[in-house]
């Protein structure tokens, strides 16, 4: 395997790793959401909206 092939392989592994990491986090979150009451879900949504706002601000700092 030459260096370019190794780079491609590493990129693929990285992508797969990142995708799995995100998909798993979302899967666990969905399990939690499904078990929530309506009130808990509303509070959860308010919190997620705040997180979104913070992330949109953080986007400008990259």
């Amino acid at each position, binding site marked *: 395997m030459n260096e370019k092939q190794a780079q491609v392989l590493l*990129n693929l592994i990285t992508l797969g790793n*990142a*995708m799995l990491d*995100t998909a798993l986090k979302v899967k666990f979150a969905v399990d939690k*959401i499904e078990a929530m009451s309506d009130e808990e879900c509303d509070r959860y949504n308010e919190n*997620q909206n705040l*997180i979104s706002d913070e992330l949109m601000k953080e986007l*400008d700092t*990259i």
Partner: protein
Amino acid sequence: MSNFFMNPFLKKTYSLRNLIILISIIFLLMLGACSHFQTMTPAKKYATVRTAFNEMVRQYIDQAKLQPEDVRAKLRENVNPVIKDAEKALDKYFESLTLPGDDPDARLAYYLDLKNQILKLCLKYGLKIAAD
């Protein structure tokens, strides 16, 4: 995970194009991979999509910060606006869910159309940057 991305060799070779592909694919996962999505209440749908969106943006920010300055400048110019548009588009989609007497089929069509628009935007910018 973060240690994995801190590998200097990986950091050097992790290309911008892959970042774009990553956010496009995660967006697909977020909008399409939840098997119970169509049977959820609107509040739970919102929670699911918002959580996935936040995770996607978190992942994007963490990885973008590892890129060299010239790449980060391109990301700020070309990809950040797409993500901000997508954030607004999510709200727009969920506003449509609360319309009284809204037809479920129309909502689904709207959701699919929105997903396609977002993916087209991601691909458009992804291809443009990859071609640079």
